[in-house]
C-alpha cells in the first residue's frame, strides 16, 4: 500500500530525535512494558489484535529521516507488527530475552520503532512484552495501546467485532503543536519560566556532579505496599494535596539533605494531555518541567507539601513550554549543564485491563534515558500499592549508591506518612536508622581506657628509665635524657619562682635549638601551660598575643626578642645562671585537667585566638599515636615544625616519652627541601612530618630520594593531601609509610588518621577517629548525614580543647552541646565540609565558609586544585578567585597553557581557571602553610580573541568552535585539538559547519587546518579537503621546528588516533602519521610488512631527509615502526627514539589463526569504538558506522570497504613477517589490564632489540591506551623522553 504521509516532528518528538542523534547507537530511548497475564491466551488472536491496533495507531507506523529541512516523520500506510511468540522459555529466559531486545538500538530511519513478544512462561501464564521508541510513544501512550489491545483481543475472543477505535491522528498533535508555538500563550510561558528560573541555584546533583546520559540505565526496584500507600493518600488528603505531591515533597527533602542545599529544583515529567485531543493519541507528548522548592529545616513537612501542591499547580499552567526550550533560553544547551536535579515521574496510568476476562498486571521495564536520577512512581490502578523504580545514570551511580538513595527515600516515605506533618523538617533525618547507627556508633567505636597522666609525666618517667639514651641532637650538640631533664628542671624551678605553676601561662620565644626544647619542658615541668611566640612573627602580632594570653612570664633566648611594652615579665636565657637550682623533677600540683599549652590560631575576623588544650587531651593523642605507630629507642624524630603550629607538639614530646631521639632542625630549615633531605639522611631520621604543600616541594627536590632506607614513616596534616602528592611520594620513597592526619588546633593536634596506599585512587581520606574521639558529619539541622552525603564535620570526645582563652562567647559558639554524647558533653564545630565513606573513613571536602561563587555559580576550589594536580607534570596546585576570575597556580614541569586546555576538557566552563600561572615554588607562611596572599597576580594576554576577525567566515567558524568545544574564549588561532577537541566533537563541528554554511568539510581537514583561521582559509580557497586526510603521510601537527615524530598506523591503516597524542606533546613538536596505502587511491595493498615499511621510509624522508629519527607505533604500527627503524639504521641513519605502544613481534602471532573477514569487521567497528552486535556483512558495518556518527562514517564507502581489506591484510603480513634487529633502546608501553591473548609478552622483543626495553605499565586494555587518561600518561612519559633527547 502506498500513500505514505510525511509530517514534521512535534517539539516533543524533536527533543527525543536530537537526543538519539547525539548517540545513534544508544538503545536508551527504548521504553518497554511487560504485562503479566495469568490465564489462557490465544496467540493467533493476540497477533490479530496487535495488527488491528497497529493499523489504528499512527505513531507506531512512523520512521524518521533527516532531511535538509530538518527531521521528518514518514507515516506508512501498513506495518506488520513484529511479534515474537515463544512458548519454550522460562520466566528467567524470557527476562533475558527482553533485556537483550531492549539493548538493541533502533534505527529511526529504517523502523519499525516498536516490537512485541509473547512468552508462555507457564501453563496459562503469559507475558506480553511491548517495546516502543520514546520518540513515538510516551508512558501514557503505552497505556493507551495496552488498553486498546486488551479491548480488541477481548472482542475477538468473544467472536465479536471490536468497538471502533478512537485513536486521534498524529497530524492533530503536529497541528496542535504548531498552533501553540505561534500563540501568545507560548510567549507568556517563556516569560514565566525565564522569571522563575532566572536566579535559579545549581542543579542539585545527588552524585555531586553531572554527566551525559549513558546508553543504559541503572535501575533499582522497590515497592510501597498498600498500607503505606493508603497512609500516604490519607496524609495527602489531610493536607489537601495529592499523594504525588507528598512523594515529590519527600524527594525534595531527600535532595536537599543529600546536597546540603535549601533551594532545590526537581524535574517533573508531565503527561500534558488533560482536556486535550492528545488524550486519544498514543504518541509522544510528555514534557519535563522544573519545580523549584525551598526546603528549610525550620519549615514543616505540611508546609513543604503545600509548597509542592501550589508549585505543581503553577507548573501545570505553563506545562506546554518544552524543557528543551527552557534550557535553550537559559543558555544551558551545552553538555553537562544541568537545570534540574532528580526527576520525580509519577505515572498514574490506567492499566486496569483484562484479556477476555483474564486480568493483567503491568510492570515497566524501561522508561527512557536518564541524565541524572529519575524516581519513577507507577500507580497501576490495581490496588497493589505503588511501584518505585530509581533509574540512575550509570556514569554517576553504582548499584549500592543508587540503592542507598532509594532506601533513604522509602524510609522517609514510611516515616513521614506516620509522623505529625507539622513537625519541622529538621526532625527528620535523611539517614535510615541503620545508617544513623553506623555513622554515629559503629564508625565511632573508639573508647579506650587511658591512665590519667599528663603531657610531661611520662617524659620524666622515661628520663628516669633511660638516662643515658640520646634525647636530643641539634647541630653538634647531643643531650642525653639525663642532661636534658636536669637542664629543664633547673629552669623549671626558676620559672616556678617567677610564678609559673598549674593553670598559669608562660610564653616561650626561642628560635629552634636545644634551648627551645629545654624551655618548653621547663614550662611544663613547672606545671604551667606554654604559649609559643614564634620569633619570626611580626612584633605587632607578638605584642597582641602577649596581651591576649597575659602569661605570668615569658622566656626569650635574648633581650629584645619580645616587644618590651606589654608589661610581661621576661626571662632572658642569655646570661641566665640557673645552676643554683636543683636538677631534680620539681613538685607541682598538676592534674590532667590543667592546660598544657595555648596556641594562637588565626580568626575569621582577623583577630588571633588562643586555643587552650588540657593535658588529658594531648596525653590521649600521644598515647594513641604510640599505639598506632610504635616508636622505639632506635627511632629518630625530626623536629622542624615551628612551635606556634600544633603539629610541633607531637614532634617535641612524643619521642621524649618513648626513649627515641629528637633531631632538631636549623631555624628556617623547615622551608628548605635540600637541607631537610640532607639532615634526614645524615641524621638517620626515621619519622617526620610535612604539610602537604611542603611535602610536594620536598618530593620535587631530587635529593629527596636519598632519604630512602632510613625514613620509615612520614605524617601529613595541616592541609588537604592531594592524591597526586601521595602518588609521587610512593614513587620517590617507595619503602616509606605515608599517613594522612587531620585535626584542628581545637582538638589536640589530630583526631583522624589514614594510611595512604599507593593502589588507592580518588581524594585521600582524612580517615577514621583516634582513641576516645567521635566524628559527626551533620546536616544543617544537626542530624547525621549517611555515608556519601556531605555535611559539616563536628568533633567530640577526649581531645577537645577547653576553648578560647578569655573568649567565652566565641567558645560557646564553636563548642556546642553534643546531642549524641552523654549529658554535658560538647562537640566542636569545625567549619569543614566532609562526608563519610562506606568504610568508616571521612573525606574532607572543603570549608563551609570559604565557598566561592563565580558568575552566580558555586565553585569548590578544592575541585579545581585536584583537577590541576591531576595533570601530568603538575607537582603542586592551588586555585583562588582574584577579581572575579578563577586563577590556578601550579608548580612542576607542565606547560600552564596546556594544563588550562586540559581542564577545559574536563570541567564546566565556569570552573576552568581564566589563567594558570606556573610558579617555581609556592609561597609559604611562617608555619609552612601555603600563603595565598603572596601568590602573584596573573597577566591576562589580551583576551582569547586577541585579534580582530579577518573575515565573516573566520568569525562564524570561531563561534562554532566555541559552541562545539564549549570554550567561550576560543579565538581564531586556537587549534581544535588543543582546546579539547575529540574525534566525536570533530564530527559535531563538521556537521555544524555543514548546517550553517553548507560547506563540506571532512574530519580529516580539521587535522590539517585545525584553527578557525586556517579552516576559513581552506574553505575560502574552496579546497574540498576530502581525501587529504587519507594520504600516506598525514600531517597531524606541522608547526614547530623540533625534530618530528613519525607515528605509524594500527591495523586499520588510519593514523587519526594519534591526533590526541600530537595535541599533548606540545606546540613545538611536529607529528606526522603514516597511513596505509590504498585508503584513498586505487593502490594495491602491500605484500609484506618489509615492503610496507620501505614505502614509509621513502615517505618520511620526504619530510626529513636524514636522521636522527623518532618513531612510534601502536599495535601493528609498533611492529611497522620497528621495521622502519631497522631499515633506516641499515641505510646508515640514526634512530634516536623507537616507542612501541602495546605492540608485539610477529612470532607471537604466527600460528595463531588469522582473522576471517568477520573478525575484520569487528576490528573496523572497534576502531569506531563500537562493539559488534548483529552486523553480518560489510554493508551492515558501514550502516552501523554511519548511524554511530563515527568519524569513519564520514569516509567514502570505498574507503571503509578498503579498511575491511586492510585489516586482514595486516593480520596476514604480521604472521609472515621476519623481524629484523634494531640497535638501541626501545621505549615500551604495556596495556597491563588482563587480556584474552595472555600469551603476548614484550619479552618477545628481546632478540630484536640490542638495548634495553624500558617499559611503562598502564592500567588499561589495548584499545583504551589511546584514550584520554591513559594517553595523558603516555604523553607525559614521551614528553619527558623527548625533552631528554632535545637536550
Amino acid at each position, binding site marked *: 500500500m502506498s500513500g505514505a504521509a510525511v509530517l514534521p516532528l512535534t517539539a516533543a518528538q524533536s527533543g527525543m530525535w536530537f537526543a538519539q542523534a547525539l548517540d545513534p547507537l544508544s538503545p536508551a530511548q527504548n521504553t518497554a512494558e511487560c504485562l503479566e497475564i495469568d490465564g489462557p491466551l490465544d496467540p493467533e488472536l493476540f497477533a490479530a489484535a496487535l495488527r488491528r491496533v497497529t493499523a489504528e495507531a499512527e505513531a507506531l507506523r512512523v520512521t524518521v529521516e533527516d532531511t535538509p529541512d530538518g527531521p521528518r516523520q514518514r507515516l506508512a500506510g501498513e506495518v506488520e507488527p513484529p511479534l515474537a511468540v515463544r512458548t519454550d522459555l522460562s520466566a528467567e529466559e524470557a527476562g533475558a530475552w527482553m533485556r537483550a531486545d531492549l539493548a538493541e538500538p533502533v534505527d529511526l530511519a529504517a523502523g519499525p520503532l516498536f516490537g512485541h513478544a509473547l512468552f508462555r512462561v507457564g501453563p496459562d501464564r503469559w507475558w506480553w512484552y511491548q517495546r516502543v521508541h520514546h520518540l513515538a510513544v510516551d508512558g501514557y501512550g503505552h*497505556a*493507551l495501546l495496552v*488498553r486498546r489491545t486488551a479491548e480488541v483481543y477481548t472482542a475477538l475472543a468473544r467472536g465479536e467485532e471490536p468497538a471502533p477505535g478512537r485513536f486521534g491522528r498524529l497530524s492533530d498533535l503536529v497541528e496542535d503543536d504548531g498552533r501553540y508555538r505561534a500563540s501568545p500563550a507560548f510567549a507568556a510561558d517563556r516569560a514565566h519560566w525565564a522569571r522563575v528560573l532566572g536566579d535559579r541555584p545549581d542543579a542539585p546533583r545527588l552524585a555531586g556532579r553531572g554527566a551525559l546520559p549513558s546508553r543504559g540505565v541503572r535501575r533499582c526496584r522497590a515497592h510501597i505496599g498498600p498500607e503505606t500507600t493508603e497512609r500516604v*493518600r490519607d496524609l495527602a488528603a489531610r493536607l*489537601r494535596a*495529592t*499523594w*504525588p505531591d507528598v512523594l515529590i515533597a519527600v524527594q525534595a527533602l531527600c535532595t536537599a539533605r543529600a546536597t546540603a542545599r535549601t533551594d532545590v529544583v526537581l524535574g517533573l515529567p508531565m*503527561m500534558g*494531555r*488533560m*482536556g486535550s485531543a492528545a*488524550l*486519544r493519541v498514543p504518541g509522544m507528548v510528555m514534557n519535563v518541567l522544573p519545580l523549584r522548592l525551598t526546603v528549610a529545616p525550620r519549615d514543616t513537612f505540611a508546609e513543604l507539601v503545600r509548597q509542592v501542591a501550589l508549585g*505543581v*499547580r503553577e507548573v*501545570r499552567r505553563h506545562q506546554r513550554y518544552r524543557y528543551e526550550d527552557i534550557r535553550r533560553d537559559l543558555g544551558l544547551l551545552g553538555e553537562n549543564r544541568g537545570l534540574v536535579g532528580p526527576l520525580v515521574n*509519577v505515572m*498514574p*496510568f*490506567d492499566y*486496569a485491563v483484562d484479556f477476555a476476562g483474564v486480568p493483567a498486571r503491568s510492570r515497566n521495564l524501561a522508561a527512557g534515558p536518564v541524565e541524572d536520577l529519575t524516581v519513577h512512581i507507577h*500507580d497501576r*490502578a490495581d*490496588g497493589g500499592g505503588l511501584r518505585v523504580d530509581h533509574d540512575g545514570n550509570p556514569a554517576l551511580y553504582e548499584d549500592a549508591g543508587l540503592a542507598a538513595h532509594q532506601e533513604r527515600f522509602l524510609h522517609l516515605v514510611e516515616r513521614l506518612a506516620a509522623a505529625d506533618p507539622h513537625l519541622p523538617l529538621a526532625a527528620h533525618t535523611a539517614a535510615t536508622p541503620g545508617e544513623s547507627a553506623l555513622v554515629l556508633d559503629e564508625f565511632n567505636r573508639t573508647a579506650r581506657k587511658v591512665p590519667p597522666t599528663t603531657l610531661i609525666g611520662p617524659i620524666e618517667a622515661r628520663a628516669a628509665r633511660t638516662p643515658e639514651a640520646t634525647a636530643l641532637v641539634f647541630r653538634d650538640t647531643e643531650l642525653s635524657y639525663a642532661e636534658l631533664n636536669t637542664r629543664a628542671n633547673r629552669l623549671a624551678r626558676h620559672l616556678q619562682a617567677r610564678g609559673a605553676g598549674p593553670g598559669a601561662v608562660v610564653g616561650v620565644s626561642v628560635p629552634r635549638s636545644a634551648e627551645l626544647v629545654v624551655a618548653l619542658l621547663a614550662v611544663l615541668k613547672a606545671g604551667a601551660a606554654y604559649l609559643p611566640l614564634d620569633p619570626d612573627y611580626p612584633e605587632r602580632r607578638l605584642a597582641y598575643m602577649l596581651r591576649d594570653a597575659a602569661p605570668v612570664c615569658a622566656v626569650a633566648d635574648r633581650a629584645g626578642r619580645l616587644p618590651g611594652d606589654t608589661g610581661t615579665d621576661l626571662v632572658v636565657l642569655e646570661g641566665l645562671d640557673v645552676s643554683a637550682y636543683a636538677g631534680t623533677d620539681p613538685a607541682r600540683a598538676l592534674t590532667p585537667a590543667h592546660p598544657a599549652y595555648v596556641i594562637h590560631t588565626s580568626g575569621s575576623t582577623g583577630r588571633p585566638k588562643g586555643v587552650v588544650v588540657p593535658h588529658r587531651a594531648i596525653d590521649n593523642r600521644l598515647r594513641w599515636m604510640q599505639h598506632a605507630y610504635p616508636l622505639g629507642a632506635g627511632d629518630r624524630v625530626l623536629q622542624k615544625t615551628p612551635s606556634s603550629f600544633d603539629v610541633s607538639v607531637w614532634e617535641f614530646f612524643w619521642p621524649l616519652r618513648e626513649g627515641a631521639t629528637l633531631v632538631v632542625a636549623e631555624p628556617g630549615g623547615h622551608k628548605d627541601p635540600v637541607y631537610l633531605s640532607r639532615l634526614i639522611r645524615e641524621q638517620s631520621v626515621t619519622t617526620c612530618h610535612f604539610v602537604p604543600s611542603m611535602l610536594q616541594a620536598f618530593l620535587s627536590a631530587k635529593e629527596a630520594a636519598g632519604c630512602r632506607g632510613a625514613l620509615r614513616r612520614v605524617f601529613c596534616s595541616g592541609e588537604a593531601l592531594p592524591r597526586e602528592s601521595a602518588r609521587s611520594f610512593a614513587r620517590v620513597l617507595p619503602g616509606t609509610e605515608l599517613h594522612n592526619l587531620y585535626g584542628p588546633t581545637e582538638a589536640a593536634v589530630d583526631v583522624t588518621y589514614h594510611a595512604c596506599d599507593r593502589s588507592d585512587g580518588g581524594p585521600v581520606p582524612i580517615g577514621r577517629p583516634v582513641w576516645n574521639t567521635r566524628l559527626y558529619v551533620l546536616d544543617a539541622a544537626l542530624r547525621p548525614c549517611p555515608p556519601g552525603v556531605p555535611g559539616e564535620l563536628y568533633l567530640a570526645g577526649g581531645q577537645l580543647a577547653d576553648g578560647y582563652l578569655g573568649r567565652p562567647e566565641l567558645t560557646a559558639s564553636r563548642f556546642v552541646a553534643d546531642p549524641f554524647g552523654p549529658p554535658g558533653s560538647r562537640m566542636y564545630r569545625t567549619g569543614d565540609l566532609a562526608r563519610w565513606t562506606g568504610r568508616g573513613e571521612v573525606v574532607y571536602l572543603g570549608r563551609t565558609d570559604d565557598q566561592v561563587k563565580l558568575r552566580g555559580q558555586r565553585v569548590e576550589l578544592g575541585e579545581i586544585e585536584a583537577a590541576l594536580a591531576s595533570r601530568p607534570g603538575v607537582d603542586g596546585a592551588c586555585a583562588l578567585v582574584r577579581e572575579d576570575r578563577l586563577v590556578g597556580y601550579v608548580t612542576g614541569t607542565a606547560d600552564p597553557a596546556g594544563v588550562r586546555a586540559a581542564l577545559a576538557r574536563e570541567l564546566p566552563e565556569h570552573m576552568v581557571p581564566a589563567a594558570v600561572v606556573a610558579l617555581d615554588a609556592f609561597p609559604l607562611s611562617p608555619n609552612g602553610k601555603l600563603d595565598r596572599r603572596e601568590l602573584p597576580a596573573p597577566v591576562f594576554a589580551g583576551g582569547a580573541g586577541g585579534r580582530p576577525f579577518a573575515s565573516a567566515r573566520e568569525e562564524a567558524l570561531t563561534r562554532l568552535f566555541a559552541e562545539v568545544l564549549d570554550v567561550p574564549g576560543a579565538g581564531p588561532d586556537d587549534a581544535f585539538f588543543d582546546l579539547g577537541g575529540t574525534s566525536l566533537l570533530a564530527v559535531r563541528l563538521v556537521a555544524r559547519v555543514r548546517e550553517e554554511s553548507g560547506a563540506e568539510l571532512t574530519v580529516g581537514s580539521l587535522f590539517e587546518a585545525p584553527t578557525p583561521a586556517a579552516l576559513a582559509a581552506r574553505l575560502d580557497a574552496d579546497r574540498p579537503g576530502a581525501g587529504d586526510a587519507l594520504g600516506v603521510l598525514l600531517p597531524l601537527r606541522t608547526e614547530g621546528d623540533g625534530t618530528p615524530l613519525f607515528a605509524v598506523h594500527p591495523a586499520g591503516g588510519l593514523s587519526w588516533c594519534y591526533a590526541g597524542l600530537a595535541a599533548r606533546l606540545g606546540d613545538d613538536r611536529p607529528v606526522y602519521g603514516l597511513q596505509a596505502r590504498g585508503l584513498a587511491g586505487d593502490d594495491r595493498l602491500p605484500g609484506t610488512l618489509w615492503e610496507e615499511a620501505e614505502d614509509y621510509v621513502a615517505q618520511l624522508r620526504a619530510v626529513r631527509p636524514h636522521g636522527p629519527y623518532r618513531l612510534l607505533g601502536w599495535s601493528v604500527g609498533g611492529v611497522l615502526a620497528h621495521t622502519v627503524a631497522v631499515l633506516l639504521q641499515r641505510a646508515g641513519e640514526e634512530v634516536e627514539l623507537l616507542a612501541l605502544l602495546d605492540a608485539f613481534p610477529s612470532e607471537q602471532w604466527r600460528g595463531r589463526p588469522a582473522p576471517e573477514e568477520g573478525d575484520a569487521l569487528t576490528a573496523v567497528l572497534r576502531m569506531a569504538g563500537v562493539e559488534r552486535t548483529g552486523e553480518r556483512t560489510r554493508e551492515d558495518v558501514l550502516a552501523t558506522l554511519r548511524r554511530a556518527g563515527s568519524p569513519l562514517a564520514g569516509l567514502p564507502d570505498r574507503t571503509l570497504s578498503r579498511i575491511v581489506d586492510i585489516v586482514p591484510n595486516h593480520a596476514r603480513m604480521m604472521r609472515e613477517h621476519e623481524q629484523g634487529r634494531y640497535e638501541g633502546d626501545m621505549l615500551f608501553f604495556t596495556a597491563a589490564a588482563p587480556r584474552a591473548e595472555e600469551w603476548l609478552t614484550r619479552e618477545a622483543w628481546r632478540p630484536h632489540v640490542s638495548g634495553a626495553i624500558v617499559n611503562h605499565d598502564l592500567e588499561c586494555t589495548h584499545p583504551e591506551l589511546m584514550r584520554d587518561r591513559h594517553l595523558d600518561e603516555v604523553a607525559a612519559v614521551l614528553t619527558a623522553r623527548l625533552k631528554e633527547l632535545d637536550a
Partner: protein
Amino acid sequence: MPLTVEQIRADIADCLGEDPADIAVDDDLVDHGLDSVRVMTLLEGWRREHSVTADFADLAERPAIEAWAPLLGAA
C-alpha cells in the same frame, strides 16, 4: 449501586477539597484544580464501588460533571 450526579459531584468536591455547591455541572473541572492523578483516584474509587467501565481518557477528555454523568452510568 449506580452513581448519581449528586454522588459524582460530592466525590469530586471531596477530592478537590471544595464545597459541592461551588461546582456547577458544566464547570471545567481543571479550573477547580482537577489533574490526572485526581482523575485516576476518582476513577479507581468508582470502579471499585460502582462497576464503572469508562477509562481515563474518557473522563479526561471533557472534565465536567455533565460530560461524565452518562459515561459513569448516571445519566
